[in-house]
């Protein structure tokens, strides 16, 4: 994806009369120890191609520390940019301390102190600014003594750099809200020599070639997009000439290309990448025009298969159109078609899906099969800033879900619910829950009463605020854990009334009365706090119509003047009496915590 966006192309996009129509906007502030103005068109171009119009401001040259300490003199903190991106190099910020390290043959105390001062400055910035902060990791210094071409100098420069880099990574880990952009890794990938341009450095204090600036811009864009969008949830794969070479229906299980030698090796490596994504929580599905026994035969019996049946959440094998298969897969997995990525080697199939299901991300298997193993990674489709426990366990949860489904088919709805031994635990969020809570707040579409999206730091702020309380719910049953699947944010209003600012549940617990349990516990929280009234709010979107009547169903009265729903907390609390699940509540009261079981 990066490779076909040359610097020239990105600039043309911005000037073109037929530029793509953006569906959203963002604002970014760039500050650096190098000249950053040339990055602007590339970030704008990349984001525009992803449907985002960016408004970028570049801060004055080499004032990163001043900026962190006094952001108000550079940006309007009342209307701050969505993201701040700081790009710095050791040799620009701390040249004397770096030179000193080379003389001493180790990371000098002076340099450590300087690095600490930058970390401290970032910590201060974090207290004043709650948007996205992107900070680069320090790249290998472009200074005498650090030359990669010096022979006979031992490994001194490289050694010192490794230690500086390790020290930085260790320190920056204390600020988990900061998004690190691994500039050094990006330079290595591009090649040190081809990333740099000495002419530009001396003329403009800008060390990089245009093609490399476009790469930095792509990484920045990806970080911003990953915050705005939920990553794709499922990859739907074709089989013949996608997972293996050849056609199993014609070449047979022994004739297909898959194994240690090229091209079979490339298909195998592609499967290894897919398995890696599976372990990160991306679902895999198959949509193949084949006889199902042929495909299952390969999955079960071919020695060189990396993927096995257990890695595949859903098989759609038959002669139907891929469009229908994709729809059925989305249905079966209870996700939207906009969470799907479709990979196929057949241009016609890809075109048809692109036309009829434009929300699906379609990828055509590259013509050069050697590029197959790497082509998914560069798309940024699976970028996710923080992997949560739920992501890592997702595949196990899907299996538990399949067992539940089997059971469900033989029982009535009520019998099924009580057979589950459902336990719903509601608790006030702690720091370790914030990442998952943020993820749910930003990606839950269907069971979401208000669909208010918030950044991680905004959630942290609400959790600390005296006027707000942030709750989450975890659900388990006899088949296993569903994990952290629901979030509610209560905001205090006058006279003992609390507004349900946010109420959302992951689809995977719907139809289990968890929503009623959660709501009734929230009512109890209000009572425990000395309040008496709950105010519900419903903000319709194109995706949350299933909760339109949620408050009516739970006994709330619509108030036409406020547009909100009102109910006595005591009344809502009684709803838990009719439920078969076990419910518990864990609240913080000052430093004490209190557990209630119902």
């Amino acid at each position, binding site marked *: 994806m990066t490779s076909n966006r040359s*610097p*020239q192309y990105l*600039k043309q996009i911005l*000037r073109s009369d037929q530029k793509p129509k953006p569906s959203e906007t963002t604002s970014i502030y760039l500050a650096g120890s190098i*000249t950053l*103005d*040339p990055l602007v068109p590339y970030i704008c171009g990349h984001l525009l191609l992803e449907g985002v119009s960016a408004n970028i401001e570049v801060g004055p040259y080499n004032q990163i520390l001043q900026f962190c300490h006094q952001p108000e003199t550079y940006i309007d903190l009342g209307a701050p940019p969505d993201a701040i991106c700081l790009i710095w190099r050791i040799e620009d910020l701390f040249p004397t301390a770096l030179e000193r390290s080379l003389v001493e043959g180790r990371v000098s105390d002076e340099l450590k102190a300087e690095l600490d001062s930058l970390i401290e400055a970032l910590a201060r910035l974090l207290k004043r600014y709650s948007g996205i902060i992107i900070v680069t990791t320090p790249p290998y210094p472009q200074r005498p003594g650090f030359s990669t071409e010096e022979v006979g100098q031992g490994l001194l420069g490289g050694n010192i750099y490794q230690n500086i880099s390790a020290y930085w990574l260790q320190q920056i880990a204390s600020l988990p809200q900061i998004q690190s952009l691994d500039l050094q890794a990006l330079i290595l990938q591009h090649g040190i020599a081809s990333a740099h341009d000495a*002419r*530009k450095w*001396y*003329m*403009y204090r*800008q060390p990089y070639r*245009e093609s490399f600036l476009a790469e930095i811009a792509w990484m920045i864009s990806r970080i911003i997009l990953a915050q705005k969008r939920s990553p794709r949830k499922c990859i739907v794969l074709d089989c013949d000439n996608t997972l293996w070479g050849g056609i199993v229906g014609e070449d047979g299980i022994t004739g297909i290309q898959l194994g240690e030698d090229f091209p079979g090796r490339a298909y195998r490596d592609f499967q290894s990448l897919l398995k890696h994504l599976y372990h990160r929580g991306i679902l895999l599905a198959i949509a193949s025009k084949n006889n199902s026994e042929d495909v299952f035969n390969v999955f079960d019996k071919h020695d060189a298969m990396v993927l096995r049946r257990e890695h595949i959440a859903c098989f759609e094998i038959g002669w139907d159109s891929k469009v229908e298969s994709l729809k059925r897969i989305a249905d079966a997995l209870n996700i939207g078609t906009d969470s799907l990525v479709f990979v196929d080697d057949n241009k016609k199939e890809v075109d048809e899906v692109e036309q009829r299901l434009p929300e699906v991300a379609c990828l055509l298997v590259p013509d050069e099969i050697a590029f197959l193993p790497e082509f998914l990674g560069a798309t940024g489709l699976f970028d996710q800033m923080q992997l949560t426990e739920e992501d890592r366990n997702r595949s196990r949860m899907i299996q538990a879900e399949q067992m539940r489904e089997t059971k469900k088919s033989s029982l009535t709805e009520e019998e099924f619910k009580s057979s589950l031994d459902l336990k719903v635990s509601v608790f006030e969020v702690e720091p370790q829950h914030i990442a998952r809570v943020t993820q749910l707040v930003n990606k839950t579409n269907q069971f979401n009463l208000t669909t208010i999206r918030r950044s991680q730091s905004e959630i942290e702020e609400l959790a600390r605020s005296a006027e707000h309380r942030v709750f989450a719910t975890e659900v388990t049953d006899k088949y296993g854990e569903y994990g952290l699947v629901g979030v509610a944010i209560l905001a205090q209003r006058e006279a003992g009334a609390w507004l349900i600012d946010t109420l959302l549940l992951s689809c995977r617990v719907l139809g289990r009365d968890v929503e009623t349990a959660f709501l009734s516990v929230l009512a109890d929280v209000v009572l425990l706090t000395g309040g008496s009234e709950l105010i519900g709010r419903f903000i319709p979107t194109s995706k949350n119509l299933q909760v339109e009547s949620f408050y009516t169903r739970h006994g709330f009265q619509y108030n036409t003047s406020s547009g909100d729903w009102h109910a006595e907390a005591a009344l809502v609390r009684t709803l838990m009496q009719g439920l078969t699940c076990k419910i518990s509540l864990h609240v913080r009261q000052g430093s004490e915590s209190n557990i209630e079981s119902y």
Partner: protein
Amino acid sequence: MVDRVTSLFAGVLGVDEKSLNDASSPDNVSEWDSLAAMHLVAEIEEVFSIELSTRDIMRMQTIGIVKSVLIEKGISERDIT
């Protein structure tokens, strides 16, 4: 129709092509500041697929000189006039 170099300058500087000529320079075009100079060099190198030396870059103080530098670099005169 104006030549490719002038139209490139007009595009980067965001000014009307007709307001530029071979004598245009940072002294008489206010949009041509140091930031614009940086963008101009990147654009010229990409459009004509060449690499300018720092000596060339420092010499290029008018559109006319830019054209002669490009001709020295082997870009055909037909292409830029």
